[in-house]
């Protein structure tokens, strides 16, 4: 523990000492290095098998889809959601192993201002922009909320909103809901409510204090397990509840701590 630093909150030194006392009573077990390496190797084997299976599916799709297209009329235009909530448009822009995969999780207009949430997956270093300083590591999952043309938290640098992950299906990532805004840490002004969901969630509903509901449909970054849904909360409104549902419209969660 170091001495109190400039700008620290009052009592920080005391808190540091108390935290040290808390962990001091808990001597750690010997490091299970061999067990961790064995688990890591097993996980790597599973990932390689999964990737091989995925590659086989891609090859099969590459062969099958042109055959089906040649046998069918042109596909119908994708319908917009009936409830008028934000549209979610998947536009994968992937070329082999060198481009990030991007998708627009939602976009629209609120309070007369355009907003959007873009998600991106950078599979390896070659997918990173050459003109930016490197992030802590790759693969990387990024979320870029934009309100009125301004990237939320842009002050934190080019990799704000990005998290290193273990691959395209790292189950340790996600599971967090957040309010993102340009003012007062997302507590006021026009805000985006973002939920990083698991595979079971199909859509989410945010109920506002005027009784109105906002519905966001979960969107997946193509080729990954990373999903999110988003809605835009008007400046004058606060949140009463947040519910998530599966594709069968069964409610999976109910939160009331958001405002």
């Amino acid at each position, binding site marked *: 523990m170091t001495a109190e*630093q400039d700008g620290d909150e009052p009592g920080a030194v005391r*808190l540091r000492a108390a935290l040290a006392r808390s962990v001091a009573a808990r001597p750690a077990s010997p490091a299970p*290095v061999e067990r*961790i390496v064995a688990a890591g190797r097993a996980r790597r084997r599973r990932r390689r098998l999964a990737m091989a299976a995925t590659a086989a599916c891609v090859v099969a799709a590459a062969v099958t889809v042109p055959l089906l297209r040649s046998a069918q009329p042109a596909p119908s235009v994708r319908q917009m959601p009936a409830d008028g909530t934000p549209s979610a448009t998947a536009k994968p822009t992937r070329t082999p192993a060198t481009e990030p995969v991007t998708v627009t999780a939602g976009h629209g207009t609120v309070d007369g201002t355009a907003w959007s949430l873009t998600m991106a997956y950078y599979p390896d270093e070659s997918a990173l922009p050459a003109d930016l300083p490197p992030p802590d590591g790759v693969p990387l999952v990024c979320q870029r909320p934009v309100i009125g043309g301004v990237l939320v938290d842009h*002050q934190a640098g080019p990799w704000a909103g990005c998290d290193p992950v273990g691959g395209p299906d790292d189950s340790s990532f996600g599971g967090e809901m957040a309010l993102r805004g340009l003012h007062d*840490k997302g507590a006021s002004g026009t805000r985006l409510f973002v939920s990083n969901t698991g595979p079971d969630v199909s859509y989410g509903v945010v109920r506002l204090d005027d009784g109105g509901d906002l519905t966001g449909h979960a969107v997946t970054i193509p080729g990954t397990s990373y999903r999110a849904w988003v809605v835009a909360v008007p400046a004058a409104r606060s949140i009463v509840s947040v519910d998530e549902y599966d594709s069968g419209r069964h409610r999976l969660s109910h939160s009331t701590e958001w405002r």
Partner: protein
Amino acid sequence: MQHPRDSVADGGPDERFSRFVAARWRALTHTAYLLTGDFHEAEDLVQTTLARVYTHWHRVRPDTAEQYVRRALVNANRSRYRKRRVVHLLQAALPESLAADGGGLGAGEERDALIDALADLPERQRAVVVLRYWEDLPAEEVARTLGCSVGTVKSQASRALAKLRGHRALVGHPLATRLGDR
């Protein structure tokens, strides 16, 4: 791909990883304990995180390995927290308070009271407290780890300390008073 710093003498990524685990296990477990409030869960969390990190360790730059693993640990805990959110909310509603015993908290009780108080912080505020005041990271590094702005880190730290000061588990406890001192 072998990293330039993985010389033959280093034994390659596997040996570098093993050395990292052996050297950092204790510190990571302590950090995880403050994040989870349960020592067995903390050890499980660190093991799971390190096993995941192992699969792409060869891509992790040695000079950022510490930050990388710390970030992976926080992310893994975030996922754990979400899954157990209902349990956390129920625990927070229990009328259990160490202060209700009539005071006289000893050192061991202070430890439990502090862990209880940390458990009632929102996940991000708790992570800020642990990274800022236990790991002793500068606000900029905490911001990078959590993927937020420096201003968010400072405001979250301020709010977290305010909550700890007024937490029921620390009512009447010297720590609550001390948190108000410099």
